[in-house]
């Protein structure tokens, strides 16, 4: 059960149970729907931007524990960060969950995101972990539309 324990770490179970920044933002600057057509997971991300700083973020929707916890942890780590910093974290996180290189070397920069290191052992779950991030990426880059993991 060790790979499973690695996957479902306390941080993930906790954020699944009590997601942070869960809900909607009134009058967001950006709002993007993210959808994984394979499993039906869907999240909407709401952003309040101040210049290039993510002043506030909320997410709404439903999905598995991995996708929900990922959205929750993401929301708490990118709040207050610049767009460039958030994009850099996405790159780091992506390498972490796909098992590319050794992003754990940067464990300090990953912070709470390191809890998702176990995902790389479960290729079928990578899309769950990255759905919210892809959605955030779309929101930061463009504006109001829909993104999917496909």
């Amino acid at each position: 059960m060790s790979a499973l324990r690695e996957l479902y770490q306390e941080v993930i179970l906790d954020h699944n149970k009590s997601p942070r920044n869960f809900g909607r933002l009134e009058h967001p600057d950006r709002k993007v729907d993210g959808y994984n057509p394979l499993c039906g997971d869907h999240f909407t991300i709401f952003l309040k931007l101040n210049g290039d700083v993510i002043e506030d973020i909320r997410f709404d929707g439903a999905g598995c524990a991995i996708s929900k916890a990922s959205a929750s942890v993401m929301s708490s780590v990118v709040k207050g960060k610049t767009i460039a910093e958030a994009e850099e974290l996405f790159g780091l996180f992506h390498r972490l969950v796909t098992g590319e290189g050794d992003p754990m070397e940067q464990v300090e920069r990953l912070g709470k995101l390191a809890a998702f290191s176990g995902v790389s052992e479960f290729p079928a779950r990578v899309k769950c972990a990255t759905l919210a991030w892809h959605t955030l990426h779309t929101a930061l880059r463009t504006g109001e539309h829909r993104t999917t993991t496909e």
Partner: protein
Amino acid sequence: MTMKTAEKFDGTQVRGDFPILRQRVNGKPLVYLDNAATSQKPQAVIDAMNRYYLEENSNIHRGVHFLSDKATQSYEAARTAIARFINAPAPRQVIFVRGTTEAVNLVAASYGRVRFREGDEVLVSAMEHHSNLVPWQMVCEQTGAMLRIIPMNDRGELFIDKYEKMFNSRTRFVAVVHVSNVLGTVNPVAEIIRIAHGNGVPVLVDGAQAVPHMRVDVRALDADFYAFSGHKMFGPTGVGVLYGREELLEAMPPYQGGGDMIKSVTYHKTVYNDLPYKFEAGTPNIVGGVGLGATIAYLESLSFGAVAAYENDLLAYATERLAEIPGLRIIGTAREKASVISFVLEGIHPHDIGTILDDDGIAIRTGHHCAQPVMQCFGIPATARASFALYNTKHEIDILVKGIHKAQKVFS
């Protein structure tokens, strides 16, 4: 094959016929409960396909040489076996296709697109797989016909009285699933067809999930079209069958053009071939057809009645065991069910259940099962689904139940 005549059937008697079931997954014996997605193949089918490539491979219906003749005979023998298996009046009413999806698309294109007019109505049920829904949406878009949905109750049973009242002078076609891949519901297709015929409307039955579980008799059902896939009935992927009523098939234009579907071709005019070849353009999946023939032989070596009784017993046992689990809700509780159980667990998403079960070597399906409208009907994003085949055992159901308890512990 290990058994022939038994009145009493037990999955353990045939497990040895399916080599893949011997393997271990994550250090545990494989518990394969994803049969509604695809079933495993007996050694006899694998051998027949191997033998074909080792000894007979050639193109069919063309050469005058020894191998071409042998390959043609094997392929056509499979067609004859299938016709007998489903009690089709003649082998020429058995058209080889890639699978159920292609069979439905064939009928939608060659029957629907040609005949439907603006304002016509096509009836499909609320529990269709995307493969028996999207092709009809497409043909409705092309022709201006309208799709109407036969509703179901919260057990997952169609309202037959409401269905009967949906017919009017514009109703042109009914497409309905025999056994639901999500809910397990066995629809009363004979009655559904009788009602449609009473209104002069033909019916296509999606039998993909029915053929592995019950003896299907297309004449007793009086089906106009009956579609199924090889791979869900212990045969190979990439091959399936469209059965059709002869006069309907005769009147329909070809689905695709190419080799083998013609009698004579000039630069400007082609005379199409007779049934079934009119609908079989190009070199088909020959080895698939041969494999499907071997599958029929395998199934005919078993007593279908005894197998069905055994599967019912598995279903009853699994339903009882799962229902005991606190927080578990079974989706699909029709009175007539095949051995398919969809369920949701309070507080645990189906994907997480799937991952945790896989850790114990248990294969189930999670997600929307290519039936998103069915999920919407029940107000859930996804389900976990355990589907049983003739080689599954009660012991495996016990392992499944233990796995679900483990998932609940992880998330407690």
